[in-house]
């Protein structure tokens, strides 16, 4: 979508490779979460939520397209090929977004945790020294605001609702919390990108994220935050068993008809 910027030509091979890896990870989170959200189409508890999750999935895919367009400028890759013809081992999404959609509480809580992370990462990335990424971040953050408002309200409603909705929200929080740390594990080469100001420093994003999420979950919703397990979470090349199942469904049509026309 963006026009090629002259600075893409001045990157060293190491920086270029690290940037490609980061853009892929950013896009993959969005693609996989969008798929999980789209699984509610026709199944959401009320029609408005069916529509809302379809909207959110569409936005996340729009963001994935923006990131993959930036990758295309660096290596000439094709977004559709990357989405539909890579195996699980080549995906770089976080495990948080791979987990099955579960119940409504898990879906909304996962969306809230991810929306807050994405919004704060994008907010910081608006200051990227890599102009094409700064542009994309400035664009996408304006849309992410609406996701965050939506998921935050649902988490509050469920946590402060009935005994059953609170029980399910607590259960979802306990199940999801061990996976949030992986969002803040840098990729190979990411530290040098952050040092050069191309991407935000994940530690700084994490501080803002924890403040934001804690004030909502604990302060507003009265939820007890579980303890994050000790030790460094695995990198983004280590997936749950759920990803390959998801991909086999998501990619089935494209792989069965690799030369099909889009429209």
């Amino acid at each position, binding site marked *: 979508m*963006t026009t090629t910027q002259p600075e893409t030509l001045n990157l060293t091979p190491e920086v270029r490779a690290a940037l490609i890896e980061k853009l892929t990870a950013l896009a993959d989170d969005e693609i996989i979460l969008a798929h999980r959200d789209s699984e509610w189409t026709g199944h959401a508890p009320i029609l*408005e939520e069916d529509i809302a999750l379809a909207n959110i999935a569409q*936005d996340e895919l729009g963001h994935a397209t*923006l990131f993959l367009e930036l990758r295309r400028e660096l290596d000439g890759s094709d977004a559709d090929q990357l989405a539909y013809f890579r195996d699980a081992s080549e995906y770089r999404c976080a495990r948080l977004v791979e987990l099955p959609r579960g119940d409504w509480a898990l879906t909304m809580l996962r969306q809230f945790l991810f929306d807050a992370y994405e919004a704060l990462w994008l907010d910081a990335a608006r200051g990227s020294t890599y102009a094409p990424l700064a542009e994309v971040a400035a664009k996408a953050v*304006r*849309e992410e605001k609406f996701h*965050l408002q939506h998921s935050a309200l649902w988490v509050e409603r469920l946590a402060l609702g009935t005994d059953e909705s609170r029980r399910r929200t607590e259960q979802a929080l306990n199940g999801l919390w061990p996976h949030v740390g992986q969002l803040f594990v840098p990729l190979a080469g990411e530290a040098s990108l952050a040092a050069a100001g191309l991407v935000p420093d994940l530690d700084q994003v994490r501080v803002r994220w924890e403040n934001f999420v804690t004030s*909502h979950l604990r302060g507003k919703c009265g939820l007890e935050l579980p303890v994050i397990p000790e030790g460094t979470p695995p990198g983004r090349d280590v997936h749950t068993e759920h990803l390959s199942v998801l991909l086999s469904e998501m990619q089935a049509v494209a792989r069965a008809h690799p030369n099909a026309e889009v429209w």
Partner: protein
Amino acid sequence: MTAPHVTPEQVWAALATVPDPEIPVVSVTDMGMVRDVSVDGGHVTVTFTPTFSGCPALHVIRESIGEAVRALGVPEVEVRSTLTPPWTTDWIQEDARERLRQYGIAPPAPAGDSPLITLEADPTRCPRCGSLNVRMTASFGPTLCKRLFVCDSCKEPFEGFKSV
């Protein structure tokens, strides 16, 4: 025979007739989506900025822009897109806001200084009776750019444009 020449003003006028495919009462220029027009002999370049990045109508908009300019007899049309500066609802023209309101869609509140990350929704006025006594019934609507409301004064449901 030389290629027919057009002026930038003629191109802008042609683009003013290209409707937004999802909200046909406003055009792509009303929405502030056309950022630049340049004419170089028989070659016209139109730069536009997408509204929502996941908007499924983007390719329709892109094709409609190309068709509208070609209809002027221009042999070569290039439609470029740019993300800088990002599109904002503040660029929607005043008279287009009024047309949105008459069509039943509450125009967006000013986006200018509002914080990018906030859990508060924008104030919205009922497009029928003007009341601020409204309730949001769905934070996402039939298109990415809209939300659903009900007015507690005149009891009518309506759509509201998100402030971006």
